[in-house]
């Protein structure tokens, strides 16, 4: 056990799985960097250094720099996965899925079903997501709802370094296509992470705290925001359960429904665009399955229906925040159903 950053936890998961299984390969734009240049090899190790050192250890056959050509190499990763390798392809920014969605949505995700169960596609696609980096509209989206919508894909949104390592090892060992989304603002977050390999199963939510008054469901980086809000609310006597679903597909609906049954009040925090996102999905689930348990309207803390803006003031306004979560929780905690006359 030692303190590791989100970046180091992911690097360690990749390194340990590549040592364990020679079929695991990496590919992506500048996952090493330097190929064909006049300077050093493994120059970048990923645009934010997440895969640094892996090509040096595993060589150019297993850590493959690609041309800037997402349709070809994401499709190649799918084809390689269906024919005996276990590729981890990096899409860099998840926004670039616009260049290769066919290969994910119509190819990798559909093989097993379309082919009557005859295909296995053990593919992981890693990508960065999220606002808060002044990266503006084409490099900041939180597109996990888009992937969650597609049957055949599994979708992971780790909330901390510990979670990232265990969930990534699980993803690499999984026999289905997995979209693994890393919030780019979290790469320097640190916590204690075991040195040895371990897995965290998909579809099993983590309760980061348990309380009696309000259930908060939060995704990815928003788990941290929700915990901070819960700390503040605790001082005023409002105790919260915070659920980190870890994966949006599969989604641990049982844990969400159990917690709502206990608290009767629900706030959902989701940094993706507000229409047809995970917050609407969870709200629909609870409205349908736990209507009788609800003591207050469900509240969603989500961005407005706009592209992610560039300027810091606008980006801050756009993002869900600890303050916005706190206000939402206070409002549902204070809500009382009017008695009928």
């Amino acid at each position, binding site marked *: 056990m030692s303190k590791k950053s989100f970046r180091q936890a992911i690097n360690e998961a990749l390194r340990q799985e590549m040592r364990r299984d020679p079929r695991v390969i990496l590919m992506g734009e500048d996952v090493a960097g330097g190929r064909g240049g006049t300077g050093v090899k493994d120059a970048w190790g990923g645009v934010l250094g997440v895969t640094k050192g892996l090509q040096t250890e595993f060589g150019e056959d297993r850590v493959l720099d690609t041309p800037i050509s997402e349709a070809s190499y994401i499709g190649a990763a799918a084809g390689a996965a269906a*024919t005996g390798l276990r590729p981890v392809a990096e899409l860099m920014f998840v926004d670039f899925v616009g260049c290769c969605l066919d290969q994910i949505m119509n*190819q990798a995700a559909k093989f097993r079903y379309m*082919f009557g169960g005859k295909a296995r596609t053990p593919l992981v696609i890693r990508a960065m997501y999220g606002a808060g980096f002044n990266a503006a509209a084409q490099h900041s989206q939180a597109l996990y709802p888009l992937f969650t919508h597609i049957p055949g894909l599994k979708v992971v949104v780790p909330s901390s370094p510990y979670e990232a390592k265990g969930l990534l090892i699980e993803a690499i060992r999984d026999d289905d296509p997995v979209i693994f989304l890393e919030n780019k603002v979290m790469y320097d977050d640190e916590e204690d992470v075991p040195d040895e390999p371990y897995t965290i199963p998909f579809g099993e939510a983590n309760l980061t705290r348990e309380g009696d008054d309000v259930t908060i469901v939060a995704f990815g980086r928003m788990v941290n925001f929700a915990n901070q809000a819960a700390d503040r609310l605790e001082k005023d006597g409002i105790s919260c359960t915070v659920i980190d679903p870890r994966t949006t597909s599969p989604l641990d609906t049982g844990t969400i429904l159990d917690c709502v049954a206990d608290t009767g009040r629900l706030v959902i925090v989701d940094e993706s665009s507000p229409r047809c996102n995970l917050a609407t999905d969870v709200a629909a689930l609870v409205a349908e399955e736990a209507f009788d348990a609800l003591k207050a309207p469900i509240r969603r803390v989500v961005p407005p229906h706009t592209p992610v803006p560039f300027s810091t003031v606008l980006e801050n306004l756009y993002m869900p925040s600890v303050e916005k979560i706190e206000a939402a929780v206070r409002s549902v905690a204070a809500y009382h159903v009017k008695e009928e006359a």
Partner: protein
Amino acid sequence: MQISRDILTRSYRSMRTIRDFEERLHVEFATGEIPGFVHLYCGEEASGVGVCAHLTDTDTIASTHRGHGHCIAKGVAVEGMMAEIYGRQTGVCHGKGGSMHIADLSLGMLGANGIVGGGPPLICGAALSHKLLKDNNVAIAFYGDGASNEGSTLESLNLATVWQLPAVFVVEDNGYGEATGASYACAGTQKDRAAGFGMPYFECDGTDFFAVYKTAGEAIAHARSGKGPAMLHVHLSRWYGHFEGDAMSYRADGEVAKQRAEHDCLVNFRKYVSEVSLLETSVLDEIDADVKSEIDAAVIAAKAAPLPEDADLMRDVYVSY
């Protein structure tokens, strides 16, 4: 060029099977009993068969929406294919895929594909598997003149060269992407495109089995020897519409009739092997009779086969979930 008797008879049988399979589908589709769309490969048989004659079950191919011929050429069982096209539980994909998604990975058949340009990136991946697993296999992307204009195809030509993959890109150029002529829609030439990516280019008459067999052999040998990818441009003609029900008003009167009369790969094959005494007519007649009863039996079996059950709806979305 030496071709073994075994390859000749197997190739003739494959071409005859494709022809009869497709002609029968043309008839059966018109009765309304077959759900969805079908895209027929009649007229193009020599291409798929001439290429696949050089492959084993461990080589990989990816096909197109016009995929029945490639499936048969790669050895997928006709009975299972027919049942699949009829949407039956006994189909090769248990009725989940239909005509456009027939696949059998155990035979290196990575699927017909409903997306134009869907296959070439996948084939880069299959070729990467072959290269890294050092199994001496090759991966073949079949695609049409239409798909040759897709970005995914052009990106794949680049990636395959950059990574020096054992891949062959087979452009089956039937002159039409749906209802639009290739002479309008394809800028430049396939040859120049291959040259632009630095890969060797081969071309042949796709209605002549012997031409395809010889040229595909050269292209595949290049890829298999580790020298990187190649492009094989096959000129051919489809005898039916883009899909069944297409009246083909975009083709001049007589265009298809002329192809059928002068460029029938089966007629020309029979003529050639008789002239040079490679195979006896009686052997070919026997194959024809065999195939006819095989297709008859496949249709009868498909029509009688059970439909998928309710529980099949949820099956095989994931390996585990």
